[in-house]
């Protein structure tokens, strides 16, 4: 049952990523990227990472992609050129990409991992929260600083007159 869900969701994820690569209209690409992000959120659920799945949908699919869509629509971006390459280039490019994935797969497949059994509260908000506020406290505070700097930087960069 889980394998079936994984197969379906993985296929949808790869197909929507291909649409992002190939489609000429950036809005369609953005909408399919949203599909991809929601598929990844479902995969997080399969991996017992419930908090991460919710955060993925709320932050990535619900905020970052909305931001990207806003910018596309505000700049009225039209259909782009797509992949700018001759047919021979396309063929060998696709071949090279497939070869790269095959290389990675060849490195991964022989290894057999022993999957640990996890506690019942693995992946819940409390699980992550406890570690975030004790063990990983410094990175947590640094992230808040990074977000503040990014916010200020984005406002300054996008202003019409400084």
């Amino acid at each position, binding site marked *: 049952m889980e394998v079936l869900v994984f197969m379906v969701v993985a296929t949808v994820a790869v197909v929507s990523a291909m649409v*992002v690569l190939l489609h000429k209209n950036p809005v369609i690409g953005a909408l399919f990227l949203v599909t991809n992000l929601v598929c990844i959120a479902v995969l997080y659920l399969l*991996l017992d990472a419930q908090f991460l799945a919710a955060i993925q949908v709320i932050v990535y699919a619900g905020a970052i992609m909305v931001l990207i869509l806003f910018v596309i629509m*505000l700049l009225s971006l039209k259909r*782009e050129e797509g992949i700018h390459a001759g047919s021979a280039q396309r063929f060998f490019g696709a071949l090279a990409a497939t070869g790269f994935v095959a290389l990675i797969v060849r490195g991964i497949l022989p290894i057999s991992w022993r*999957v640990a059994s996890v506690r019942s509260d*693995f992946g819940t908000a409390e699980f992550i929260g406890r570690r975030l506020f004790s063990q990983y406290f410094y990175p947590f505070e640094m992230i808040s600083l990074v977000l503040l700097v*990014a916010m200020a930087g984005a406002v300054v960069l*996008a202003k019409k007159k400084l």
Partner: protein
Amino acid sequence: MLNVQGYLVLSAAIFVIGVMTVLLRRGAITILMGIELMLNATNLAFAAFSRQRGSAEGQIFVLFVVAIAAAEAAVGLAIVIALFRLRETTDVDDVNLMKW
């Protein structure tokens, strides 16, 4: 039972698609979307390993990557907007004033 290999192969596939998007497409925002694809692929790998080892580090790292991706998307889009105001285009091949 968790098949870690499945998740890793999927992560590799999405990562390669993201790399191709960054290398082959010319629109600045499409390139940003390719970067998001790459980040998501690595997040998936982190989450898969976190489950395999039963430790929290992978998931905490994913959280930080998501936060950084948000910051990077905001700043990247601001740069694209500023560029568009200057050059009226988001085609990255046209941003070549520093080429000799």
